[in-house]
């Protein structure tokens, strides 16, 4: 009689990569729902476009590399990448924006490195930065939160504007973005940064209609949604608290200090926490295990670095929201962080 040979251990606790990824995109749901509520059905359309592109491009890469095409979708990581990229770009951006971004993320940033687990940079964020740099106009043209919009935007119009650039009635995106005061409205962070650089004070800037009591209308709640999702991930032990903790501390502590010294000229910590992609970044993006540091100490350093970079770029840099850049910059340092935060192995003089 012969038997099967296998390596020990012969047992396994069955939480597979698919399950991990499934938790991630399930945890995104609260945030996405809120985002849809404020910015319209465009969010869904973008997600759908991203998923289709991601799937097709993964399949194509697998085919080109003579690998079984069905492997492409197996681990569900592409879903996470696609969804994250889709919710990072403005809901009404033209269809080719998300297609180019996803293609770049999946093909160049992920598969040139050999696919899942081997990429050095966060695919979704690299895709986002590519878009931001190449198409700054489209990437900063966020639709107005529903409450402020002058024109209603039913689903058919959403589709029409994403695919043709105009609503059925012939309004362009630019026209849709005209707010109550008759000028195009920027996102809260953008507007703040601009105003502050024009020597307006914080309170003057906050008087604009895009701000509510918590922060930018819509944006604050979207952030709360993602915070909720992040807590679910923490609870499920999909992510450890070190990275999100590091990001928030690295962003909010300097922000608070800076604000204490320049109360008129600086964004408040609360605004920092609840605008832009702060929460999405802290809980879903910075935590991408593949491109983050691995030891707990390393995760702390990594998170702090991201938070600090977000603060620096938001405050002095050329871009209103800096999560993507901060994440990519921190990705670059991961091998070095890993190297210098390696835990002291048993028997090498560390104290228990």
């Amino acid at each position: 009689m012969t038997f099967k040979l296998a390596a020990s251990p012969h047992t396994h606790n069955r939480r597979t990569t698919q399950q991990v990824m499934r938790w991630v995109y399930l945890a995104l749901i609260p945030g996405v729902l809120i985002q849809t509520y404020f910015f319209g059905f465009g969010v869904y359309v973008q997600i759908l476009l991203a998923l289709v592109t991601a799937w097709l491009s993964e399949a194509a890469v697998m085919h080109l590399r003579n690998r079984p095409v069905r492997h492409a979708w197996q681990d569900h990581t592409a879903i996470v990448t696609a969804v994250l990229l889709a919710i990072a770009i403005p809901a009404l951006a033209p269809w080719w924006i998300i297609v180019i971004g996803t293609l770049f993320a999946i093909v160049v940033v992920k598969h040139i490195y050999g696919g899942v687990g081997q990429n050095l940079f966060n695919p979704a964020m690299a895709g986002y930065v590519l878009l931001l740099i190449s198409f700054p106009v489209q990437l900063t043209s966020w639709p107005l939160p529903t409450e402020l919009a002058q024109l209603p935007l039913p689903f058919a119009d959403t589709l029409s504007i994403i695919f043709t650039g105009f609503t059925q009635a012939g309004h362009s995106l630019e026209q849709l973005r005209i707010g109550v005061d008759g000028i195009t409205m920027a996102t809260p962070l953008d507007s703040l940064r601009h105003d502050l650089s024009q020597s307006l004070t914080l309170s003057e800037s906050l008087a604009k209609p895009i701000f509510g009591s918590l922060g930018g209308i819509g944006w604050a709640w979207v952030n709360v949604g993602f915070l909720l999702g992040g807590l679910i991930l923490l609870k499920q032990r999909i992510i450890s608290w070190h990275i999100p903790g590091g990001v928030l501390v690295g962003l909010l502590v300097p922000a608070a200090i800076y604000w204490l010294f320049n109360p008129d000229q600086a964004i408040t910590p609360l605004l920092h926490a609840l605008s832009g992609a702060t929460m999405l970044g802290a809980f879903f993006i910075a935590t991408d295990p593949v491109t983050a540091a691995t030891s707990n100490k390393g995760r702390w350093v990594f998170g702090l670095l991201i938070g600090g970079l977000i603060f620096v770029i938001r405050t002095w840099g050329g871009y209103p929201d800096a999560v993507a850049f901060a994440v990519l910059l921190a990705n670059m340092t991961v091998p070095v962080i890993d190297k210098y935060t390696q835990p002291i192995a048993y028997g090498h003089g560390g104290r228990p």
Partner: protein
Amino acid sequence: MSQTTSVYKELAWQGLWKNNAGLVQLLGLCPLLAVTSNITNGLGLGLATLLVLIGSNITVSLIRKYVPNEIRIPVFVMVIATFVTVVQLLINAYLFTLYQALGIFIPLIVTNCLIIGRAEAYASKNSWHHSAFDGLMMGLGFTLVLVILGGIREILGNGTLFDGADLLLGDWATSLRIDVFSVDYPLLLAILPPGAFIVMGFIIAGKNWLDNYRAARAKQPQKQVTRARVTAQ
């Protein structure tokens, strides 16, 4: 005679493809990546490099016997610097617009690693005519890469080809300009620094792919190297 032709053939093969300065040796990358936002710039820099390369190779080959080892590098770089300055002055005098386009990179050809690299690796060991040919082929291979890279980046980032060729080649070249496509929003990234790196990565990969493909196709019987005997048989 046949032997010399084969030397030239080998040099051409090495310079243009097998050991291409830009794609394989990864030399001269700085100007290569920096100025290739369009074909015209690429071509211009390529030709300038070509000129300097031939000149420096010949000179280095001629003087190689008279230079002691310890001052080899200073002498070589000086020779190259002289050539560059001369070429720079000539371009400045007769191709002023190109001079503006290539800017700071003309003086930097001096330390273009390709040039000192060839001086060290080839010209300092070979006769002047072989060195000259080596310079020509390496330079052409380098120019080829510059042009391809410039072309791809120009198409992606600008939607055109040979935009501004008149600056380099004279007014007749205006007609060379091709509008490949025209969209309102070209892929700006391609002409920014990251695009340069990424497109270059794809070109290198393309070359590797071609090589692999040809190797797989060819599968010619492997030549066998005779074993040396260490001991008596």
